[in-house]
């Protein structure tokens, strides 16, 4: 059930003096079961792109297709569509509003018109997915929780709608190391259990750890797509765009530059293997 962007262009305030092109001729297919990381400098159009994925924003030209169906066509029930593509905004804890955690998570499923029993089942399942205990905090006010917990409640609020595609805009922004680690584990687990995930991130170490594919945005255009190996081996091009690369990539890039025979690694575990081979096995230099 792929989600496809076909020649998507988005222009803000067309025809006015403030006209600006936010997205320019984007062609991208998000395949089932992948974890696509969307990276790029602030203002490169990542968030605008994300809002096109569930019809919150409409392309000025081009189309967004879900299962081959144009999600913005008049006869598509857009509300139904939004439930299939779940969008978690930046700092989503700022949208919590209900008296209790349970009610807040139930907001989405209720809007879907589900029965009380179904809503309850979904709340329980969603809380379970993000590692929150219903007994402990279900009846608490979301505003009494820690920042990391609030973020997970907000995530559960979208998961309770059981989207097939989950779009996350900077999911770990502002979290401390431990809260961030938990959240990344949640995302990884969701992905493993079959949810398609699109994740916008500035943290290349997060991307290196999770992504199965990466799309790089620059000035409203799709600059590159590829596997993490392919993208992070483009060291110079990424840094030229003002983007970070994972530290593992930096080190392997530098060591290869010095003539050492190691693979291009973007994950620390890979680099550890390579360095172990190199430092234990002799044969230090490449031919």
């Amino acid at each position: 059930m792929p989600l496809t962007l076909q020649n998507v262009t988005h222009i803000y305030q067309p025809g006015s003096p403030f006209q600006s092109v936010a997205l320019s001729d984007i062609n991208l297919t998000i395949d089932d079961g992948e974890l696509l990381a969307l990276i790029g400098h602030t203002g490169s159009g990542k968030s605008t792109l994300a809002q096109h994925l569930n019809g919150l924003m409409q392309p000025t030209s081009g189309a967004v297709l879900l299962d081959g169906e144009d999600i913005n066509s008049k006869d598509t029930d857009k509300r139904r569509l939004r439930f299939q593509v779940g969008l978690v905004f930046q700092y989503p804890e700022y949208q919590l509003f209900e008296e209790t955690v349970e009610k807040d998570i139930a907001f989405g499923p209720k809007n879907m018109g589900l029965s009380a029993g179904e809503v309850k089942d979904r709340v329980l399942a969603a809380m379970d997915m993000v590692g929150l205990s219903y007994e402990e905090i279900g009846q608490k006010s979301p505003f009494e929780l820690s920042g990391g917990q609030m973020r997970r409640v907000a995530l559960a609020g979208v998961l309770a709608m059981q989207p097939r595609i989950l779009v996350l805009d900077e999911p770990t922004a502002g979290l401390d190391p431990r809260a961030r680690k938990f959240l990344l584990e949640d995302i990884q687990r969701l992905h493993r259990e079959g949810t398609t995930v699109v994740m916008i991130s500035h943290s290349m170490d997060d991307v290196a750890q999770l992504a199965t594919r990466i799309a790089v945005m620059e000035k409203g255009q799709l600059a590159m797509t590829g596997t993490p190996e392919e993208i992070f081996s483009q060291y110079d091009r990424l840094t030229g765009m003002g983007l970070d690369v994972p530290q593992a990539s930096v080190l392997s890039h530098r060591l290869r530059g010095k003539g050492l025979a190691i693979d291009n690694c973007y994950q620390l575990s890979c680099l550890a293997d390579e360095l172990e081979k190199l430092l234990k096995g002799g044969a230090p230099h490449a031919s």
Partner: protein
Amino acid sequence: MSSAHFVLNNVSYRYDEDAKPALNKVSFSVNKGEFVAVLGHNGSGKSTLAKLLNGLFLPSEGHILVSGMDTRDEQYTWDIRQKAGMVFQNPDNQIVATVVRDDVAFGMENIGVPSPQMPPRIDEALGAVGMLPFVDRAPHLLSGGQKQRVAIAGILAMHPEALILDEATAMLDPSGRKEVFDTVQRLNQEQGITVIWITHFMEEAAKSERVMVIHQGEVRMDGTPREVFAQGETLRSFRLDVPPMALLSEELRGRGIDLPPDILTVEDMEREVLARCR
């Protein structure tokens, strides 16, 4: 005359009288011109510490001296806040005026700087943070990193001796984070301004002179970044992490490769690997 800029003596702070103290009998001192990173997870007490350092909060027990002035002594309140300026986390919530120029003037207006002296000080302060071209802009149209630099300029214009940054980069993207960190580091090196940099980013702490780790309201570690980050296990028990290269060296040491424990940066690791291959 002592060169101690901040002296904390057995400082405790409670938000509620019967609550667990947010800060518990903390003692340390920071010298003039030092660049100290204070590291801790959310809720560790590090933000409380920040607000105690310029008298926004007053200690429940113990006392704090800023350049020899006791923060509890009301006659020094404004002197202390002028000398120890503070930058907060959310860039949007600390800008008061609708034009950059007016915002930089805000602090000076409060401490009664004569009007004719303000324009040159505004130019100087904005120049020091590289924001002079934006003097007539509306702050809400700037990027996060730029807003934080405007906030820093507003403090510089008051001619402070210390900057306290309370997670000033937590809401910024990597380039904004770097922009703000580099600016502050330069001010520390060129103007000798004492910096207290509160953060949960390991990379930033690794680039400072001294790292203090706060956990459950107490200072648990205090040393150079190399000393602190060599203790991965301890840091993890404080809900923190170590920079990627320290993690890698830990992993390799575990696999029986003899590497020194104080590797922090890519450069360190590169040097060690090359030394072992030649």
